[in-house]
């Protein structure tokens, strides 16, 4: 028994999934996957706020883009940064129709250009053996956009996030079943996800998400100037070297935190979020932590990322 459900679901008519407007923070903090049972069933990343994400619409500044060679050919991976964090995305080898456009982006990126993008993509994730989940996006449609369109996305994503925050708060006083949640006013598209999310994640303060939204809204209302420049903080070429050589104080500390944590773990893999968390609790900004990790991996080569999202010191294990 129980298999019957599988068959019923696999026959659900395949209607296109709507694109959830979502900031990087909410998406990357998700660790719950609802896997479609049948071959063609949609799967979802379920966020803490109860969004069921199969397809999403994201935006931000290009933060990283590289061409890679895999067993089945060329693919691309990259990052888009929004006011709350970073979305990881990839363009697969079996999406040749996107390769020309991606190459164009890559050329711009490699020439040092940074630009705002919008992307529609499907939810993907990597699950580690110890249950860690790392979310990313498989690109479907993307384009370079101007600031106005980015702001418009920021507003849409803020609206959608606040709607989920509201639904989440509403759900706290309610029984976790379809009827009760509908009764207290959780929108019907969020009810299922809310039940899953509340059952999986422990209760948390939505303040963190609201801070991100407020930042986005203030950017969108034009209260913070020169968005791209702000996001593109100065650590490009030169500061990297400083960090590695230990010439500047800040980055050295960050580097130490990371190296120490990794060496204390020996050959054990340490999750990206854990590393960033250790840095932020040592008083380093999230952005600097992320940049330092990246530099240690890509430039210094002191740490390696044997599995996506998991790090160890080079030479260990």
């Amino acid at each position, binding site marked *: 028994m129980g298999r019957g459900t599988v068959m*019923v679901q696999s026959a659900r008519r395949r209607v296109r999934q709507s694109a959830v407007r979502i900031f990087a923070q909410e998406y990357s903090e998700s660790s719950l996957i609802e896997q479609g049972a049948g071959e063609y069933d949609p799967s979802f990343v379920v966020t803490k706020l109860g969004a069921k994400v199969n397809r999403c619409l994201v935006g931000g500044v290009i933060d990283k883009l590289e061409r890679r060679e895999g067993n089945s050919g060329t693919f691309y991976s990259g990052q888009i940064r929004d006011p709350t964090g970073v979305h990881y995305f990839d363009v697969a080898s079996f999406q040749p129709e996107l390769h020309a456009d991606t190459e164009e982006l890559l050329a711009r990126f490699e020439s040092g250009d940074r630009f705002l993008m919008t992307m529609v993509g499907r939810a993907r994730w990597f699950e580690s053996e110890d249950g860690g989940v790392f979310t990313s996006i498989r690109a479907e449609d993307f384009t370079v956009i101007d600031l106005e369109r980015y702001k418009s996305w920021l507003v*849409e994503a803020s609206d959608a996030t606040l709607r989920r925050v509201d639904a989440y708060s509403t759900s706290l006083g309610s029984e976790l079943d379809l009827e009760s949640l509908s009764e207290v006013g959780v929108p019907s598209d969020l009810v299922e996800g809310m039940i899953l999310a509340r059952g999986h994640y422990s209760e948390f303060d939505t303040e963190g998400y609201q801070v991100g939204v407020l930042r986005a809204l203030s950017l969108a209302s034009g209260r913070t100037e020169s968005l791209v420049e702000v996001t593109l903080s100065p650590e490009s070429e030169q500061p990297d070297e400083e960090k590695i050589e230990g010439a500047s104080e800040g980055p050295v500390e960050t580097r130490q935190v990371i190296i120490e944590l990794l060496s204390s773990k020996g050959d054990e893999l340490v999750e990206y979020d854990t590393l960033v968390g250790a840095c932020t609790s040592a008083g380093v900004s999230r952005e600097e932590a992320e940049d330092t990790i990246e530099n240690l991996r890509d430039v210094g080569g002191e740490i390696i990322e044997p599995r996506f999202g998991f790090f160890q010191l080079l030479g260990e294990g």
Partner: protein
Amino acid sequence: MANNGMYASQIAVVKQECPETDEEDIGNEFARYEQEFLIPPEDALRSVIRKFQAATGKEVTSGAPAPARSEKKVDRFSDLDAEDRNVTIEVAVVSYSSRIQMVKGEERQVAFGWIEDNPWDPNSNRERWDFKDWGEKSEALAPGSVVRLEGASVNEWNDKRSLNINRTTRVTVLKEGGATAPQIGNEPLSISKASEVEGFVNIVARVLSSKPDVIIRKDGSGEIPVVRGRLADSSGSIGFLSWAAFEHDVGSLVKIVGASVRKFRETPEININDGTVIEPYHDSAFPDIGELSASSKATIADLRNGMRDIAITLQVESWVQRTFESEDGSPRVVRSGDVIDPSGRCRLTAWCEFDPEPGDFIRIEGGRVQFWQGSPDLVIDQVEQVVDLSDPPWKKIDPEDHWVDLDLTGLVNGGSRRGIRTSGTVVAVRSDSGIIERCPECRRVLRDSSCSEHGSQRGQEDLRLRFVIDNGVSNASLLMGREPAEAFLGMEMSGVRDRIAGDGRDGFIASLRARALAMPIIVYGRTIVDDQGAMVLADTAELEKLDSSEAATEVMNRWGVVL
């Protein structure tokens, strides 16, 4: 060996079918399916049996030489023989009830019910059989669903045939059923609830209308007398079709036990047959016929394909008549025009001498709905169905500027409509946007200069744009034909052709993406909503002007946040 314990029950089933096969081999096979192919044993059962049947070089069956068990695939029950064992057929599940039965000293859940063949035929040209489910497949066999049965067997007893669904039968759900109908004997449902289910229901309702009709058999073998009409309660009204005598007057209150709800096109309908019990019902608080008729008035937004017996008030926008030659060569006249009400716009076709003036207000009783180019089309057959209204029911609507606002979620969950305005964000630009070639015969889009119907053709050039618009909760395809596309692009078709010739189709698509992706768009047009989702056919579409600062303030007000 260790596997055998885990898969004991599945191994036993395989052993029945393939008695010569070694149990350990079977166990290993299940382990392989589970570990290497990630198929749990319940699902692997049939594949494993097939494998071992093939491995032993013959279709092994238990016991004496039985009829060959090669698969027999049929469309209709009538194609089956009494001895058929390995049957593949697609059926509609009509009912499903289960009970616990002792089988060989073991408690087992056995279920039975009705299935019908020919499940995809919208006409009721179906044969109904009993079935027994020995395989505990209740979840797949929900009433109202259409399933493919593989490996079912025919059972004949007292000259009556039925189908056995066994543990090894694979049941693939092809179309999910509606909500499961409650069992007979349950409390009556309201009509609005009954309209949402498919299967057996009991209702208490007042007869709004009732008249004898005939259904002509397609094969020419005669006519079936039926009764059609309408039933109502305070929750709504529903059409009925009675295959048995129906002797209840209009206005009478009845309790109907064991009727089935079926969909005719997109409209649910109560089916009454010999097994249905109808008895007079007494409830002095039940709304009278006047009240119920008043509430059964439809609006254009309510219209769905297949509806009958519609009462609706309309404003006529345009009216034409044309004469054509009917099949028997005699001339026939059809009159039609556009009509509007506050909820939208549709077409009205009259097969009778009805000649209103644009601007007239009319009331229609007993109208029916057909689909015309994907939109509901109201039809009247007799001029007596129309009343010319002297009192305007609403302030005259200006047809030039009559667009009904509909958000994407309402659009996707509603019926096909005309004259709507909606908005969403562009989340996909389809790569087949741009110049296309159409078949000169049928207007189908040619693929490699070839029409699926008319073969190789010299195509006629046309322009279209295909997007997907989305509001984060619901989405719809957006199709712009040549005129709206030219307006949207600010470019004639020839300009688009030149652009594609210069930049290639990919370049053209990339430029569309750069222009439209993640942009809010407002669309005026009509919608086609069906099982595949919703499509908006644009009369015009324009990107919305962005004012993010204003939008941000709106969002902050909506959710009560301040910077």
